[in-house]
């Protein structure tokens, strides 16, 4: 057993876990943050994507201990109170989700994509960048639309800040 200390969605936490505990298990089983999902166990589907120190990581593919001292943001931590993150709003407004299972990972990956590209995105880039997130419901059409829409919204909201 080890104690893992980290900041999760802005709150400091310290959790005693078995050394083999995965980050996603810590989030889901110990912190009850069940918005982060497990869809494949092989780092392929991206349902488990969270942000570690501002970068998208697959939380099913790292040990909780590897996140010791890090700042983790999950799907539960991106809205500001009742105000949705622009990416969340864009997924809703563009019907970028159906069953919702891949959605948290999609949104977390998509935010990272927009950040990394400085908001300069086109359809081909979004499709290439979403390679690590699998959706079985939407056929990606509306997810791509949502990400492009959100890229614009995020630029506007950044400019406003």
């Amino acid at each position, binding site marked *: 057993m080890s104690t893992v200390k980290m900041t999760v969605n802005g709150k400091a936490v310290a959790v005693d876990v078995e050394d083999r505990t995965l980050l996603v298990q810590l989030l889901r089983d110990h912190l009850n*943050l069940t918005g982060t*999902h*497990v869809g494949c166990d092989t780092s392929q589907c991206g349902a488990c994507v969270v942000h570690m120190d501002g970068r998208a990581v697959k939380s099913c593919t790292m040990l909780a201990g590897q996140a010791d001292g890090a700042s983790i943001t999950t*799907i539960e931590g991106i809205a500001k109170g009742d105000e949705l993150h622009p990416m969340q709003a864009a997924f809703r407004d563009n019907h970028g989700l159906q069953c919702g299972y891949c959605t948290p990972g999609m949104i977390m990956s998509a935010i990272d994509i927009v950040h990394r590209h400085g908001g300069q995105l086109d359809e081909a880039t979004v499709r290439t960048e979403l390679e690590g997130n699998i959706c079985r419901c939407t*056929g990606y*059409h509306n997810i791509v639309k949502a990400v492009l829409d959100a890229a614009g919204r995020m630029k506007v909201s950044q400019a406003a800040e």
Partner: protein
Amino acid sequence: MGVEGIGASVVRKEDKRFITGKGRYVDDIKLLGMTHAHFIRSPHAHAKVKGIDSSAALKMPGVVAVLTGQQIVDDKVGNLICGWAITSKDGSPMKMGAWPAMAPETVRFVGQAVAVVIAETKNLARDAAEAVVVNYEELPAVADVHAAIKSGAPQLHPEAPGNQVYDWVIGDEGATDAAFSKAANVVKLDVTNNRLAPNAMEPRAAIADYDAAEEHFTLYTTSQNPHVARLVLSAFYNIAPEHKLRVIAPDVGGGFGSKIFIYPEEMVALWASKKVGRPVKWTGDRTEAFLTDAHGRDHVTHAEMAFDAQNKILGLKVKTYANFGAYMSLFSSSVPTYLYATLLSGQYNIPAIHAEVIGVYTNTTPVDAYRGAGRPEASYLIERLMETAARQLKVDPAQLRRSNFITQFPHQTPVIMAYDIGDFNASLDAAMKAIDYAGFPARKAKAKADGKLRGIGLSCYIEACGIAPSKAVGSLGAGVGLWESAEVRVNPVGTIEILTGSHSHGQGHETTFCQLVAERLGVPISQVSIVHGDTDKVQFGMGTYGSRSAAVGLTAILKAMEKMESKAKKIAAHALEASEADIVIENGEFKVTGTDKAIALPMVALAAYTAHNLPDGMEPGLKESAFYDPTNFTFPAGTYICELEVDSGTGKTSFVNFVAADDFGRLINPMIVEGQVHGGLVQGIGQALLEHAIYDASGQPVTASFMDYAMPRADDVPSFNLSHTTTLCPGNPLGIKGCGEAGAIGASAAVINAITDAIGTNNLEMPATPDRVWRTIHAA
């Protein structure tokens, strides 16, 4: 149409919880004292279970129990059932072997469970499973359908000699032979419809909780049809009587058919929770999904189509071998028969059809309904035949289709189905216009000049959906009725709850069903909530599959609404001292037509529940229910056209354009309908280009993770150009046909027709991987 009524693209009510991480899926639920199950599964495709030694595992920390297949048999838990009886052409019933929830004696596919470990945590259960020693005696195995029916092949079940489940026929063989004898041309085609893994993104899961004092079970499960699950678990598996079993399907992360069925894991979890006296949770991982979720498709077919000298179709002969895997899953028997061969007329006038379907056991994962279920196989076959025929007869493929379209409705096909309505020319025209079909030769020539092989492919699909009239499916062997139920509860303050037997696992029912209420009463959808997925809350219902939730489920809601409105109008008329016939409902008010007299819905509701001043003899309350059984299947149809380029150097396919023109009848929420089409199209494209659940000759699965099975990803597929043509379905009052499966049914033929057009062959199997396409190009 109001802003939130029928036809409005309202954003989904359910989205907020999913985009904020507040969805509640089975694996998100924790119960006090909950234990965790891990199944011990066969690594062999076919073997005798000679012994199970769990002594070491039982000594490990946190292990609560190790339970085996023999114990479940000893406790008289029933075997899994197949709910649709098929009769062979010789009059004999289908031949089925027993399928116990865990194998006591013989395993017949890799992944079949033989025992389960129950432990304090998931990790401890996994650890202990490693310590359970199962002694197997390997038996010869067979995975391929043709190998399985050869004499001397390994035999799976003594009940099914030659591994044959049934040899079933449909249509008029004599008439079809006569038609072929008059043919000017006969087109022949052999096609394989590749085996697919459904791969809903949420793996299956179950939590079973036994209350010993009440002798009552609660099951949380990933189900598309919780009432059917309860019925089967009670009536056939002897788990508990229905009133002692509550089945809850909370948020479910996609189904595509794979979550219709009642699997061994749910049964074992229920049984084990009583055995150990604590809640038992099982959550499958992705490899377990590949090994145990019912697969789809897997047909091998030879077909011949006869044409006269004017290129009119005279007849169709089909012989299909359907691979069922090692056991007959819940609805498996119906898929290659009544869901497949009844659609072999496609959109065409075919005077004579004869089809034979041979169902075969193999040492592979059981096969059952997967998005489209039989209809994709039929549509793929017919549309590949039409394209091949056009090339052989040297006519334009659009024109060949057009000249054979059914144009008069209703139309009785030679294979049971009576198409009620359609306009196949309209959808073909819309798709051809959208893709600029006339301009294709010029585009192809330009691509050629650039060194690319460009092709165009059509697919004019039809499907039978909204399944279906209970009497009809009963006469064909179904063990259940296929109606749907609904209840409308108007609360005393005027808010409304709709309880539906349909189940949403991505389809957006929480929005579309509210839109019907908004349309009829003029209330905002925020005043309406949808209750589904819990057998303790909702009256018996049949669930969601076969594109039936709008055509059947929503119609049931409409019927209940009509009853409720009729009573509410009486109350309003009484309060307003007006005639009931003069009451109209607008903007949430009951108005006396032609006057300014009105009473708002909440006041009507309150009057119903205070019951101080109701018409004489009227019962208090404002709640009505309805069971709706349709009079026919519905027949969504449309045309998909795919234009693509093939790189002859690599065999890689790149999409240029993909257009879809669908006739779904009335659309409730076009945004959601289009989302359904997008998703279906990508599953069809996935089948055409990427996906294949492969077994080696010994029955070992080769594709049991996302590392090996090629799921369509965002950069594999294009954006789509969708349009709609409309003929309203006469079979239900809303005119709805259903939209859930169309994309998966129609897309794969369009893709393969386009690739074969590009590279100049008629023979190309799915998935058309770059390797396979390259070899085909360079084999010539």
